[in-house]
């Protein structure tokens, strides 16, 4: 009891400051959530009040507009994520556990890409997609997302797989396991927390990407959620239909929040441990 009081006494000033920062950080989000249930009339009169009767029509209207964009983004981000995991885990395994000629050079060739800003490649990559006739297709996003996403994924996964004890692989080798079996039955299952971290970071970045889909997907039918949010926000904001606009923002946030809730344990552990220190 005394111990707890001492802890609280020590922590109290910190709680005050951190609490204040948290309130300021979260206030806009809470306001967004509350306002998404406000009718347009209420917006004019009770800006700060809590809507007594939630206006579900906001969500109905917003869903109609935003759901096709969500579906596009689910397909694109999902396919990119699986692509990155499949390709990066294989390459990371190879880089981590084999001493083949040219290993250092090839790995450096991948790492060097971390230094190349996307702004440099934006225009030539766009023209390449155009030449490949991929404008207005899911592939225009998925293929570059896999190509770019694997760089960081390999960077993280390689050092993790390299840190696994060699005895594990030695033992299974003596048992006559093939390289593929070692990859599939040892390296992959042990890397699960890192794979999940990589997967979430990849989904976060593709779900949030704006410029690349803006450039390569002119057709509104194939728009991703980011393009949808901006166009939807400007359109409804311009009409002063704030309720549906906020409802749309809430809907657009749900998939990532679900994904995050399901995997939080791994994600936070992965983020604050090895992943970033490296």
């Amino acid at each position: 009891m005394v111990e707890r009081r001492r802890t609280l006494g020590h922590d109290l000033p910190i709680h005050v400051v951190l609490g204040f920062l948290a309130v300021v950080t979260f206030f806009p989000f809470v306001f967004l959530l509350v306002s998404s249930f406000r009718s347009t009339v209420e917006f004019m009169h009770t800006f700060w009040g809590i809507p007594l009767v939630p206006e579900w029509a906001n969500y109905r209207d917003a869903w109609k507009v935003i759901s096709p964009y969500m579906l596009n983004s689910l397909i694109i981000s999902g396919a990119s994520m699986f692509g990155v995991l499949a390709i990066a885990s294989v390459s990371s395994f190879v880089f981590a556990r084999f001493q083949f000629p040219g290993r250092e050079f090839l790995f450096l060739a991948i790492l060097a890409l971390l230094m190349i800003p996307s702004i440099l490649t934006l225009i030539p990559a766009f023209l390449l997609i155009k030449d490949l006739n991929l404008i207005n297709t899911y592939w225009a996003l998925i293929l570059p997302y896999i190509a770019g996403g694997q760089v960081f994924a390999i960077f993280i996964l390689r050092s993790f797989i390299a840190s696994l004890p060699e005895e594990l692989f030695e033992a299974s080798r003596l048992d006559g396991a093939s390289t593929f079996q070692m990859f599939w039955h040892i390296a992959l299952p042990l890397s699960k927390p890192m794979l999940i971290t990589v997967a979430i970071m990849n989904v976060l970045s593709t779900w949030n990407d704006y410029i690349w889909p803006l450039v390569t997907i002119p057709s509104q039918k194939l728009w991703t959620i980011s393009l949808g949010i901006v166009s939807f926000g400007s359109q409804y904001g311009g009409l002063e239909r704030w309720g549906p606009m906020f409802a749309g923002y809430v809907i657009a946030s749900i998939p990532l929040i679900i994904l995050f809730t399901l995997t939080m344990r791994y994600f936070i552990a992965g983020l604050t441990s090895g992943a970033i220190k490296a």
Partner: protein
Amino acid sequence: MSATVTAGTPGHAASDRAATPPSLLVRILSYRTVYLWLAPTFLLLFIFNYYPAFSALYHSLFQWNGANIKLFVGVSNFVELWHDPLWWESFWHLMILTIALVLINLTFPLGAAAMIFHLWNMRMAYFYRVLLVVPMVVPGLVVLMIWKFIYSPNIGLLNQTLELVGLEMLTRPWLGDFKLALYAIIFVGFPWVAGIGTLIYLAGFQAIPGELMDSAVIDGASTWQRLMFVELPMVMSQIKLVVILTIITAFQNFTIVLVMTGGGPGTETLVPGLHLYRTAMAYNRMGYACAIGTVLFALTLVLTYLNHRYLRSSVEFSGT
């Protein structure tokens, strides 16, 4: 299959065996399956990363519309850039943004991480850590649109708050204000604690060896002294990493400006990335856009190098 695995490290072992060392070709051939496994990675990298990067550097020397017109013009794109008032204006904005963002990332997230680290109550520390990650999963564009709403002239959250507390005279269309628009953009995300920066710093603090902290306490160091002379020097690598990430992000990310102001009012918030984008997409001047990209790339390299060279690294205690 397993034969390819057991090879270990040949090169050095060969000398004491006196037998002829396997030639490079033989070794490469013995690893052929391994290269096959790497093929998808490199195939994608060549097509979608290396090729566009080299294409950008190469075409910065051309007058190019991306299709039929392609004329070698030497360095004249760069000469034109040197005399381009829009470039210099956007570059000035970028400097202000970058310096502001670096300062922000060296204070707020670092302070928040240090405070969380100093909590005695571990469960509350974990609670804050989770709390700071939550806003990261709200889609970035939603966050930007919320800030656009906060700044909006009539019904915006900022103006409404000012009216509520009796400061009507301060209300204005923040993003449409010629003097303030750029600062409004800098202010997006206030108080800037919920992000990757805080997590990186926190990871750094947590990696400080316990003995080091204990000996500081035994030597009678106050909390403040511990922070200044033990903890901050120990997270120097993390500080460096955050500074590099901030600079790189500032140099290439123009989504925020494009969405919030479109570079306006006038050209008050134009940044080089947006200038590049317009040059290419609106005016079809691909060669000139590539030249802008090349300059931005070179500047990022120089800044990364300077950061690496002149910001001291953590004491080599953490091992990694």
